[in-house]
C-alpha cells in the first residue's frame, strides 16, 4: 500500500466508517420499528400466541425445523404450516409422534396437553400471517 496513505489515516477511516455505518444501521432499525406494526401481525398477538411461542421455544422446535426460513434444515418449514396443513392436522401430527418407521427421521413425543397444542397452533397461525414479502415461493415452504 502506498506510503502516502499512513496508518493514522487508515485508523481515522476505520473509526469514521465504523461509526457512520453503525449510525446508519441504527437509523434504519429505528425506521423498521416504526413501520413494523403494519407488517408484523402484532395486532393478533394474544396470550395464547405468547404461550404458544414459549412452547415452541422450550421444546427447541427450531433445532430441527425452520420458521420463516431460519433454524435447522432437518425438518419442514413451519412458518406457513398452518396454511399448508391446517390446525387439526398439526395437532394430530404432534400427538402421533414418533412414527417409529424404521430408518425415517423421527420427531420426539413432547407430551403436550390439549391446551398447549391449541396455543402452539395459535402461534403458528399468527406466524403464518406475518407479511414476509411473499416468502416462501410456494406452499411447500
Amino acid at each position: 500500500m502506498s506510503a502516502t496513505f499512513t496508518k493514522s489515516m487508515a485508523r481515522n477511516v476505520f473509526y469514521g466508517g465504523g461509526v457512520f455505518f453503525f449510525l446508519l444501521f441504527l437509523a434504519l432499525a429505528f425506521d423498521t420499528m416504526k413501520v413494523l406494526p403494519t407488517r408484523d401481525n402484532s395486532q393478533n398477538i394474544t396470550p395464547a400466541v405468547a404461550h404458544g411461542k414459549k412452547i415452541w421455544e422450550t421444546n427447541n422446535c427450531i433445532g430441527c425445523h425452520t420458521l420463516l426460513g431460519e433454524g435447522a434444515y432437518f425438518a419442514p418449514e413451519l412458518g406457513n404450516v398452518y396454511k399448508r396443513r391446517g390446525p387439526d392436522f398439526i395437532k394430530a401430527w404432534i400427538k402421533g409422534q414418533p412414527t417409529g418407521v424404521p430408518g425415517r427421521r423421527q420427531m420426539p413425543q413432547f407430551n403436550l396437553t390439549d391446551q398447549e397444542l391449541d396455543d402452539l397452533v395459535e402461534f403458528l397461525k399468527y406466524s403464518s400471517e406475518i407479511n414476509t414479502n411473499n416468502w416462501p415461493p410456494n406452499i411447500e415452504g
Partner: protein
Amino acid sequence: MKYTSQAVAKPYFIAAIALFLGQILFGLIMGLQYVVGDFLFPAIPFNVARMVHTNLLIVWLLFGFMGASYYLIPEESETELFSPKLAILTFWIFLVAGAATILGYLLVPYAALAKMTGNDLLNTMGREFLEQPLPTKVGIVLVALSWLFNIVMTVLKGRKTTISLVLSLGMLGLAAFFLFSFYNPVNLVKDKFYWWWVVHLWVEGVWELILGALLAFVLIKVTGVDREVIEKWLYVIITMTLVTGIIGTGHHYYWIGTPAYWQWWGSIFSALEPIPFFMMTVFAFNMVNKRRREHPNKAAVLWALGTSVMAFLGAGLWGFLHTLAPVNYYAHGTQLTAAHGHLAFYGAYALVVLTIISYAMPILRGRAANPERAQIMEMWSFWLMTISMFFIALFLTGAGIVQIWLQRISAAPLSFMAVQDQISIFYWAREGAGLVFLIGLVLYICSFFVKGQSHAFE
C-alpha cells in the same frame, strides 16, 4: 515465551481442541441422522445433537479467542498479564459452565431444562444458537467481562498497539452484542430482528475484528514484516468489514416480516462483504512473500495462509452465492445456507484459532517450533480437514441446488420430506467427507505427541 503469564493460554487451547473434537463427533451423528433418520433415537434426537454441535463450536471458538488474547496481549503490551489468577479462574468457570450446559442438553429434556434453570423468570431459551439456559447466558456475560477487564487492564499498563486495540474492540463488541440474547419479545419479527444483532453482528462484524487481529499478530511473528505495514492493512481490512458487514445485516431481513427496503440495503452491502475477505487473502500472501525471516514453524504459516483463503471462499464466495435478494428468495433456509455456514465457520474462525494455537502452543511448550515430523503431521491434518470441509460444502451446495429446484422452482413442487429422500446421495457423500475430517482432526491431535528434535529459540 517472553512473559510467564502467557502460560495461562495453554489450558484454553487444550480445552478448545477437546471441545472441537466433541463438536465433530456430534456433527457426524447428525450427518448420519440425515440419512438414517432413527439413528440414536430417542436417546439423542437431532435437535439435541444440533444444539451440542453448534454450542460446542461457539464455546471452543471462544476458548480459542480467549487463549489467543491471553497469549498475545502480554507480548503486544510488553508487560505481564494484569491478573493470571483471574484468567485461570475464568477458565474453570467457563469450562464447568460449558460442560454442565452440554450435559444438561444431553441428559434432561429441553423443556425440563428450561424449567429447572429459571427460563420462566426471563424467557431466553429455544432460539437457534442461543439455546443456553439463563444461568449459562449470565455466565457467558461474566466470563466475557472478566476476559475483557483482564485484557484492557493489561493493555492500559503497557504498550498500546493497533493489534491490542482492535482485539479489545472486537471483544467489547462481542460482549455488548451478546446482551441482545436476553431480549426475546413475543413479537416474532422483533425477536428475529434483534436475534441477528447477536448472530450476524458477531460473525460478520466484531468477530472479524478478532480474526483480523489474530491473523495480523501471527503474520508479524512469522514473517518479520514491519508492524507499521501490517497494522495499516489491518485497519483497512476491518474498515471494509464494518462498512459492508453492519448494513449487510440486512440480508437477513428479506423474509422475516421486516420492510422490503432491506432487500436493497442487504443485497448491495452484503454483496460487498467478500471484499474484506479478499483483501485478507491478498494481505496474508503478500506478507508471507515479503517475509524477512524464515520462521521454523512452517505449519503456522500454512494455517495462516489457509485461514485467509478458506475465509474468503466460505464467508466471501459462498456467502455471496445466496446473498442477493432475488436469489435468496429461493435459497433461504435450504442446504445452501448450511453449506455456507460450514465453510465460513471453518475457514474464518476454526482456522484462525488453529493458526494461533499452531504458532503459540510450541512456544508455550518451550520451543520455537515443533519437530519436523510433528509439523508434517500437522500439515497433513490441515489438508485433510480443509479439503474434506470444502467437499462438505460442495455436497451441501449440490443438495441445496437440487432441493431448491424440486421444492421451490419445478412446476410440480415436492414436499420437504419427499425432496429430502431425493437428495440423500448428497448427504451420504457429506457424511463420508465428514469422516475424513475426523481423521484429519485425530491426526491433528496426534501431532502434539510426536517426539523428535524441536527447534530451539534463536
